[in-house]
Every structure is written in C-alpha cells, then in structure tokens.
C-alpha cells in the first residue's frame, strides 16, 4: 500500500479500523479530538459505530461492555480525561478484558494545558488503576508508529487479555507524516471462548467478573495474572537504539523526546562526545535488560522527558544504580530544543572527564 500523509491522531483511528476495531467510544478533549472526528466520519462507511459518550467514565465502560462480548473496541482521551477512565481500566484488568486506550498526553496536573507532555508516565506504567496490576504501555515516536503500534496494541490486548495503553503525546498526535498501513503483520490470536454473548444453549453461562469475596480466590486470580505479566516481560519488550555500541553517555527517551535526543546525540558526536540513545517502545514492560547491558560499557545515562522526571527512576532501577543517571526535562507543554539536550550532554561529559 502506498504511503499517505496523515496527522498522528488520524493515523491511530485509521489503524484501529484496519485492525478490525469497528467500535469507538469517546469524549472530546484536546489534543486528541481528531480521533473522535475521524471515527465519526469513517465508522458509518465501514459498518462500524462511533458513539460519543456522556463522559470518559461511560466511554470506558462502553468499551468494557463491547469487550465482554468479545468485540474489539477502543477509547481515547488526553490526560485529564484519562484520569477519569481509571476506574474502568482497573475493572478491565480485574475482569481480564482486552481493550485499547489511547492517551495523547497534555500538560498537567489538573486541567494543566493543551501542549504536549509525557507527565502521565507514572500513571500509565505504575498506577493507572487501583489494585495489583500492570498494563502494556506502548510509546510511538512517529506517525508511522502511531499506526503500527495501534494495530499491535489490539493484538497484544487479545493475546494477553489485558488493556493496552498507547501513550502518545500532543506533538505526535498533531504532526503530519507519511504512513504505510500495510507495514504490520497481524499476529495469531486466541479464541475468545470466555466472552458473554449468549450461551446459545450449548455451554454453561460465562461470567465476566472482578469480585472475589474469598481472599484466597482473589489472590489466586491476581497471581495467575502475574504469571501472564512475567510472560509479557519475557517476550514483548521492544526498544530501539542509536549509536549505543561505543557510547559513553546513553540518552533514554521515548515518544517525541526520542526524536529530539536523536538530533542531540548527532550534535554531541560532532563535538567529540560519544553519545547514544535507547528508545523504549514498550514502557511496560520496560527494557530493563537492554539498559542493564548498556551499563556494562556506558559511563552514564541521561533520561530526557517532557516531565519533571518520571522514567528516570526506571532507568536507575534498570541499571541497578551501577552508573550515574542524570535527568533533563521540560514540563507544562514546553518542548526542549535538541541544542538544549546537547548542551546537557556536554556538561555531563565535562563532569565525567570525557571531553578530549
């Protein structure tokens, strides 16, 4: 298929439809409203449905209802709306239901702003709902990845019976780039024999449930889910590297920030600093092993984020605190220039005595 020029948000919507998601439930919020608008235009033409819910809470529960019936469905929002969905996300996890939730992040806390942010990293990777739980968190850094990771998100959700978060940001959501929608090979998917879509007189009734009054029963279901999480950690980690082989200082960045770091690394190299970049594509599971291996040769790490520093704690844990882990970030919707990051790399190089 030929490449088409598209906005990041629209690429998500088209990729979802390509992945067989014919049901979208959402509520307008900047900077992701194009997803709803695109769905509203396209869904009737492909025999699907775009339903504007009365709230983010209702939207996520509509997804839960659709998913209970074994149907692919998604919702999307931006930071403040994402917080509202957290109750439903926890119920999706507790009921082992697949779902795709897109967060095109904006600045917070509170109403915050409408400019790009990565300050929902902790929320997405650590605590998007109450209880013992994880979610698969995918971080696209190009419009192409907005499309391919959306398709991947639906497959991962079905394979592992878990909600998957596509953690994008306002910059990638709003920018336009060429996309090829045929770039991804769909995975083999399991039967949804657990779905509640009428027992048809041929089986015992199915129950979708997250309630266990007996503590041992609840513990058992959580432990079973964690066995699945271990499998995800073993098999689904994705990351990308740039000039890390001989790197003294390795930048760690995802999403739009990884692209800024890519340029910054090139700028630093031109000044004789051996910089490199590792870009986590899965934020959970986090590429712990890859970062730990880099710590064998790298002298320091720099986590670059559109926040006050959240992923930086995971980088420290990943390298077992064997190397200094520094942080550079802007927040509130401010995006750093590559030169700002390069300057930080230069300062680190001086501190570490790496300048020749």
């Amino acid at each position, binding site marked *: 298929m030929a490449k088409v020029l598209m906005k990041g948000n629209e690429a998500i919507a088209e990729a979802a439809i390509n992945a067989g998601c014919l049901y979208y439930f959402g509520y307008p919020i900047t900077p992701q409203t194009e997803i709803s608008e695109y769905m509203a235009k396209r869904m009737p033409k492909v025999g699907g449905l775009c339903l504007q819910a009365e709230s983010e809470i209702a*939207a996520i*529960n509509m997804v839960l*209802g659709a998913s*209970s*019936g074994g149907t692919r469905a998604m919702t999307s929002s931006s930071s403040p709306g994402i917080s509202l969905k957290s109750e439903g996300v926890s119920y999706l996890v507790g009921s082992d239901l697949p779902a795709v939730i897109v967060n095109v992040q904006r600045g917070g806390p509170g109403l915050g702003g409408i400019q790009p942010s990565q300050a929902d990293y902790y929320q997405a990777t650590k605590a998007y709902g109450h209880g013992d739980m994880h979610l698969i968190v995918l971080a696209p850094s190009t419009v192409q990845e907005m499309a391919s990771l959306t398709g991947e998100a639906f497959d991962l959700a079905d394979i592992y019976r878990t909600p998957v978060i596509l953690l994008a940001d306002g910059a990638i959501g709003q920018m336009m780039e060429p996309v090829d929608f045929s770039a991804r090979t769909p995975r083999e998917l399991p039967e949804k024999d657990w779905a509640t879509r*009428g027992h048809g007189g041929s089986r015992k009734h199915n129950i979708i*449930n997250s309630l266990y009054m007996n503590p041992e029963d609840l513990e058992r279901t959580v432990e079973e889910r964690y066995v699945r999480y271990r499998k995800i950690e073993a098999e689904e980690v994705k990351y990308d590297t740039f000039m890390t082989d001989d790197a003294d200082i390795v930048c760690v960045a995802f999403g739009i920030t990884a692209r800024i770091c890519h340029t910054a690394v090139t700028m630093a190299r031109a000044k004789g600093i051996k910089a490199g970049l590792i870009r986590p594509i899965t934020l959970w599971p986090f590429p712990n092993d890859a970062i730990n291996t880099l710590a064998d040769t790298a002298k320091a790490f720099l986590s670059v984020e559109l926040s006050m520093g959240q992923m930086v704690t995971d980088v420290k844990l990943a390298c077992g605190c064997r190397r200094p882990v520094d942080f550079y970030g802007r927040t509130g919707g401010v995006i750093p220039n590559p030169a700002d990051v390069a300057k930080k790399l230069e300062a680190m190089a001086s501190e570490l005595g790496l300048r020749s």
Partner: protein
Amino acid sequence: MSIVFDKPHALTDNLMHYCPGCTHGIVHRLVAEAIDELGVEDRTVGIAPVGCAVFAYNYFACDMIEAAHGRAPAVATGMKRTHPELVVFTYQGDGDLAAIGTAETVHSATRGENITIIFINNCIYGMTGGQMAPTTLPGQITTTTPYGRNPKIQGNPVRVCELLSTLDGVAYAARVSVDTPANVRTAKKAILKGFKNQIDGKGFSIIEVLSTCPTNWGLSPVEALSWLRENMIPYYPLGVYKDIDSGEAEKEAK
C-alpha cells in the same frame, strides 16, 4: 407426581445470599420467568453492578457481567451496540442507578438504548449496611442520617420514573411493587413487557420495583412490607409513567 410449580430455567441452583424477607429473590424470579417465557436465555446477557445484587451472576443462568458501581447502563450500551441480537438487561439498586450512576442512567435513557433496566428501590444502601440512598425518604433514619433525612441538609429524594419519563428515548417506565401477590403479578407483567419491548426494538425500558430491606430498616419481614405500603408507595406512586404504546397498555389493563 406431576410438577405444578418449578424453578425457572433461567435461575441457577445456587443458594441466594439475600437476607430473610428481602424482595430481591422475588424480583430475580420474575426476571427469570420473563426470560423463560420469551425463550431468550441462550441470547441474554445480564449486567449486575455493585450493590446487594452484585452476586446475581451466581443466580441467573444466562451470561452475566459484574460491572462497576453505577456503570451498568454504559456497559449495557457497549454490549447491545456491538451485539444487537442479544437481549441485554441491567439489575441495579437505588444508590447505583440514582446516585453514582445518574449520568449513565439518564444518558442511556435519552439515547434510547434498546435495553431493559430492572431498578430495585428500597430507600437504603443495603450492601454497605444501611446508609442513606438517593431515594431515602424525608425523615427516614439510616446510619448516615441518624436523626432522619432532613431535606434541608441531605437534600430531597429522587423520583426516577417521573424523571426519566420526560425523556424522548424512553419507551417504557413503570413503577411496581412486590409487597402483595396482586402487586407481584403486576410487576411480572411490567418486567415481561420491558423485555418484550427490547426484543421488538422499541427502545429503553425501565421497571422500578419498590422493595424491602428488613435488615437495614430494622423491621421484621412482615413489618417491612407494611412500612413499604405506608411510607414508600405514597411518595413513589405505583403505575406506568411512560409507555410509547399506551393505547395497547390501556387495552391490556381493561
């Protein structure tokens, strides 16, 4: 020996956890009878959110979903919109439907979702042990209105059928009671109609059932039935508040 009265097929053999004198058991039976009579158990999905009926998935033999507090109409919307061939019902209490889930209730109603809602109104939060509900009557004592509900402080109760009957998407809104055999028969008819409306694609139907909670009201089962008659029915009058085929309904009544 011939069987003259049996358990509906749409109910499982599981023992119910409801307190003595609680009317949930009667309403469960009426819903199951309606499912049996319409022959739709194999394509019915029930949704019971947080509340005393949260374990309904153990009692109904159709596919069941346990939903978050107040969210059942949204879950039902997602289920019904993706599987229009299914019969989808929710079974919700007063706190669930008229407090925390008010938005989901009102909007699923005004959208005219083709679903059936069974609404249990017993003027109290049962599961958590007798706190004030949105439908708790003025003056009624609960653990969070120990001096009686004072509308000037705790606000006024919600009359759900009256409220929803103003919405265009509602096909049928009826308030019934299960305090006497005659009222149980009327309730059965209303519930059956609520399910039939959905099968006929008529839209949103809600059947509000005035119910007792002897445990949290601190009354015996018999006293509780009297309390319902003396206090609840005057505030929440029984009857059909909206019926888009009211002509037919009048004929049936005659």
